């Protein structure tokens, strides 16, 4: 088990390093000179040179990249002498726009993205698993066909379209929900909850549809397994067959996929956050892209890659706990 973990963590680090290198390379090649950007108006060549020196932009690519990676693990110092700035580990650099440390910006916005991700995950897991089970139990009935139609429809609505429809219907026309505004949970829990209802639904609906289909297909597959036939031949009660012999094998793949999807979302729901104007990591990514704020884009990309890699490892560990066949082989 330990060896398995170490191998997984090592290969995860390699993937992250590659993500880092790839992103860095692309921006190094594509971006306009950040020094000019930071300098703004009233700029002189001397100031630009100084900024370049402080940020290490005058170094060759390999050195810049090396310093960046070292900064993440050990921190780094920008500039020299009196103007030196210490950037503690994990150092992802500073925003060209706001001069804030990228790490601090992420830490500040991560809870918001997590709130959206967790709420949506609860919704889609409930809807997906329950819907899939019902659909499978009632295979071929009206309920099953209705559910299938509903999932296909839900999968086909782009989430920004759904966001606008919901906003128009629930906020503008029916006025059931207030216009979304930033409210802390402690100040007004009800308002806080109402703010998040729409993002949760918008984010959850596509996943809920996919999970319904997955669960239904898995349950139907498992019911065709020989061991389920054995369970019937043993004279087990129907409820026990369902609960013990069908459910666990059918839901195991759902756990795997859930881990990946959830990890992917923790790093920010870009479109949903942008549409609803929620100040999470996703919106920060969109904003930084719009302003070509390279260190922030790097930070967000790395964060997302990191979460996916960690999610992968967690899923493998959980999977080996659920499936005895994997447990022994690992």
């Amino acid at each position, binding site marked *: 088990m330990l060896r398995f973990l170490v191998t997984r963590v090592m290969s995860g680090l390699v993937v992250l390093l590659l993500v880092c290198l790839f992103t860095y390379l692309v921006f190094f090649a594509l971006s306009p000179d950040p020094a000019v950007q930071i300098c703004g108006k009233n700029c002189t060549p001397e100031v630009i040179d100084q900024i370049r020196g402080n940020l290490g932009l005058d170094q060759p690519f390999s050195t810049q990249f090396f310093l960046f990676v070292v900064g993440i693990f050990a921190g780094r110092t920008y500039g020299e002498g009196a103007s030196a700035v210490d950037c503690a580990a994990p150092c992802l650099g500073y925003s060209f726009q706001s001069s804030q440390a990228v790490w601090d910006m992420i830490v500040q916005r991560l809870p918001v993205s997590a709130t959206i991700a967790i709420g949506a995950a609860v919704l889609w897991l409930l809807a997906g698993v329950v819907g899939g089970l019902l659909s499978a139990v009632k295979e071929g009935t009206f309920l099953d066909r209705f559910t299938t139609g509903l999932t296909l429809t839900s999968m086909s609505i782009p989430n920004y379209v759904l966001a606008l429809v919901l906003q128009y219907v629930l906020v503008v026309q029916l006025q059931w929900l207030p216009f979304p505004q930033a409210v802390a949970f402690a100040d007004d829990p009800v308002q806080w909850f109402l703010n998040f209802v729409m993002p949760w639904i918008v984010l959850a609906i596509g996943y809920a549809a996919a999970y319904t289909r997955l669960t239904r297909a898995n349950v139907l597959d498992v019911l065709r397994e020989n061991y389920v036939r*054995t369970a*019937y031949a*043993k004279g087990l009660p129907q409820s026990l067959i369902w609960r*013990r012999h069908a459910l666990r094998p059918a839901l195991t793949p759902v756990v795997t996929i859930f881990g990946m999807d959830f990890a992917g979302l923790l790093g920010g729901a870009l479109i949903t956050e942008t549409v609803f104007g929620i100040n999470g990591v996703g919106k920060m990514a969109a904003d930084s892209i719009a302003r070509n704020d390279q260190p922030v884009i790097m930070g967000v990309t790395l964060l997302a890659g990191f979460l996916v890699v960690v999610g992968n490892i967690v899923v493998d560990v959980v999977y080996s706990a659920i499936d005895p066949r994997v447990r022994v082989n690992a």
Partner: protein
Amino acid sequence: MTTESSVKNDTDALLEVRDLTVTFQTPRGPLDAVRSLDLDLEPGGALGIVGESGSGKSMTSLAIMGLQPRAARRTGSVRLRGRELVGMSEADLRRVRGDRIAMVFQDPLSSLNPYYTVGLQIEEAYRAHRPGVTRRAARKVAIAALERVRIRDAARRVHHYPHQFSGGMRQRVMIAMALSMEPELLIADEPTTALDVTVQAQILDLLQEIRRETGTGLVLITHDLAVVSEITDHIVVMKDGVCVERGPVEQIFTRPQHPYTQALLDAVPRIDDEIGELRAVAPGAVVADAVAEKNGGAA
């Protein structure tokens, strides 16, 4: 139809199948996987059902227990000790399954749930049929059952998962599971087909020995006449869902009446090529093949 295996007295018979028919509704009209089949087995007796894949023999075994697929309709009569199973409520059938009739399937690996220990899979059946039995008592039954099928170190092995057993050992687990309830009738559907030749012999010996010790009736379903000849006394030969010949083992082997039986006998020494051989001799099994293929490994 002469039946030397037919019983002296109806109430005496362990299993009495009359006119058993399993019908599928297909887009091209109804299709009989089993048609008008009669079977008789006295207590403690052993009956072999022989036929190539697609002959309807596996469907017969499932239909006896009322486990035919949803899409199929079962008609006729299946009596266990005089009690009619066709038309019995699902709840009553459940009490018969596992407790009075137990089954052993062809592929032990896929027939055991990979997610649970073999101990749990034996215990759950026992507890389902003996309400109020404690977990500990059921565990003892499971260990005893594993010991009876000669699995060494049974007290430790109950905690193992199916994939931790070899093929032959898995089939022993299946047999242990079937025997734990001390059923009156054991239906073994190709119990040795998925196993190595040497292991096959061991499993057959085990079945024979258990039958002698416990007096359990046995219905052995196979495509392999050599297997049947070893442990059964009567044979029913099936083709395309219909019984083409029946009789005591010696009679079938020495004086086969039907050309199909002759073909089966000719194929005995050449086990590997058997199916191909049979195709050449007895063509026209296309319809039954459709049934067999969809029936998966069990056919």
